[in-house]
């Protein structure tokens, strides 16, 4: 199964008639990690909602081998894991375990398989001790990690994260980064946290006023101070890209296909 995103001329207008996406061309290949940067109001969240069929614009969009807008959305939603910006929006069930089980149960998996996936997903984000807690009893960093577990349990081919490091303290941010670095998935990450983008992703694109305006290796995109400034972006003062070490990928991406294929047929 393909884990790629192919958007060509994707357009979307808000119900008010104001254009949000004005012809987005974005191609993300299998196994890539791409940072989606851009000022507020550029259309980042709108684009992410398209990847899961939650919004439906015009133009061509193929995600994980499925053409969005044709056929049932259910397959698409099991292949694309969307992590929302506010974990309080993502975690709506009374307990952590029930919330992580929500997606796999909707996929129609058997209970024993669901329980195994819940346990695996909570271990993957280091939250195995919190299964029976209500979400409101967790810290912001813990809620964010559980929110990621809720989509990991669905074993998606593609992980899409909206501002994963927003309102985290430095320690929770570091823990989150460690978790994301260990996840073997094609990843699209929206963020204003440029050091996070540099550390996690090898490619960065800038979305401004509904179009992809810059696309290239993360080191090059983030080193171009003038281009960043033109789109209201800026690295923290004193941040040195050259000294940044990106950790090697944990596991060969070949395994992704094996697990996702198993997930979608179960």
């Amino acid at each position, binding site marked *: 199964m393909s884990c790629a995103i192919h958007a060509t001329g994707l357009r979307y207008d808000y119900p008010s008639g104001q254009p949000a996406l004005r012809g987005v061309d974005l191609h993300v290949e299998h196994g890539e990690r791409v940072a989606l940067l851009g000022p507020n109001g550029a259309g980042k969240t709108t684009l992410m909602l398209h990847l899961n069929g939650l919004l439906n614009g015009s133009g061509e969009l193929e995600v994980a081998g499925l053409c969005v807008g044709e056929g049932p959305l259910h397959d698409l939603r099991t292949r694309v894991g969307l992590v929302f910006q506010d974990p309080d929006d993502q975690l709506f069930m009374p307990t952590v375990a029930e919330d992580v089980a929500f997606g796999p149960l909707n996929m129609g998996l058997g209970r024993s398989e669901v*329980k195994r996936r819940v346990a695996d997903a909570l271990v993957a984000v280091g939250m195995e001790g919190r299964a029976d807690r209500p979400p409101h009893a967790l810290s912001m960093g813990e809620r964010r990690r559980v929110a990621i577990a809720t989509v990991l349990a669905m074993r998606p081919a593609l992980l899409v994260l909206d501002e994963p490091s927003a309102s985290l303290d430095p320690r929770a941010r570091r823990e989150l980064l460690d978790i994301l670095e260990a996840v073997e998935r094609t990843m699209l990450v929206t963020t204003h946290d440029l050091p996070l983008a540099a550390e996690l992703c090898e490619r960065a694109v800038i979305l401004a006023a509904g179009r992809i305006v810059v696309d290239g290796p993360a080191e090059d995109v983030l080193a171009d101070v003038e281009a960043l400034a033109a789109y209201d972006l800026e690295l923290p003062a004193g941040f040195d890209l050259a000294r940044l070490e990106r950790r090697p990928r944990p596991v060969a991406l070949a395994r992704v296909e094996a697990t996702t294929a198993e997930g979608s047929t179960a």
Partner: protein
Amino acid sequence: MGGVSHGSLELTGLAGDRDSRLHRLDPRAKLVGLLLVTLVAVSATPDRWPVYAACAAVLVAFAAAARVPARELWRRARIVLPLVLLAAVFVPFLRRGGETYAVGPLTVHEAGLLTLAGVAAKAGIGTLSAVLLGATTSFPAVLRGLEALRVPRLFVLVAAFMYRYLFVIVEEVSRMRAALAARGYRPRHALHAQPLGRMATALFLRTYARGERVYLAMLARGYRGSVPELSPLVFGRADAAFVALVAVALLPLRALAEVAL
């Protein structure tokens, strides 16, 4: 989060010995058993004191077995009880019969006082049943029990979302209040209430927007109109025994009260 007090929300949640037999019962058994106690008390005519005494005895035994301290029960009951009793306090002035007593310019009737006592007993038993259910059963477990008892799914979902987002909304309200106080807002009379109205509007709009985002998040994980369950409840021998015990302790007395007393 940190530093935000939830006030009366802290009074919810489990209390007593969390590993007691009663805490471990199936939520359906506790729902049915405690509802039975309440129904027996509420359905009796106001002067059937032996029935009330038996209901109270069952509840006291329940509290003792679950090791819920009396002070904790009182702390929780006193929030609900005044509201429940509010309607009954006028009865002694309105219901005529028996001896009369003068209270200032008003007259109190004996029949009214007896009715008030009966209603207070019913209210107390009903409240105590609910408090005991809350002290021995987590809210998610109560919801699952209700769903398993075929309560319409829509009601259960509404209650589930209320429980989940009550805390989020309380946090939002306390942040908004802090923001008002930080700019010197100190209401002294009714005309100063306008900012509170604006706050309520803002809160409504924010909550509405959150509702839409939550729905998107549900759709994103394959929601198709029903919330499936992870581990079904098991109604075992102990659960059946508990319901039978409550029924045997109260139903014969309640039936007897109709004919003999």
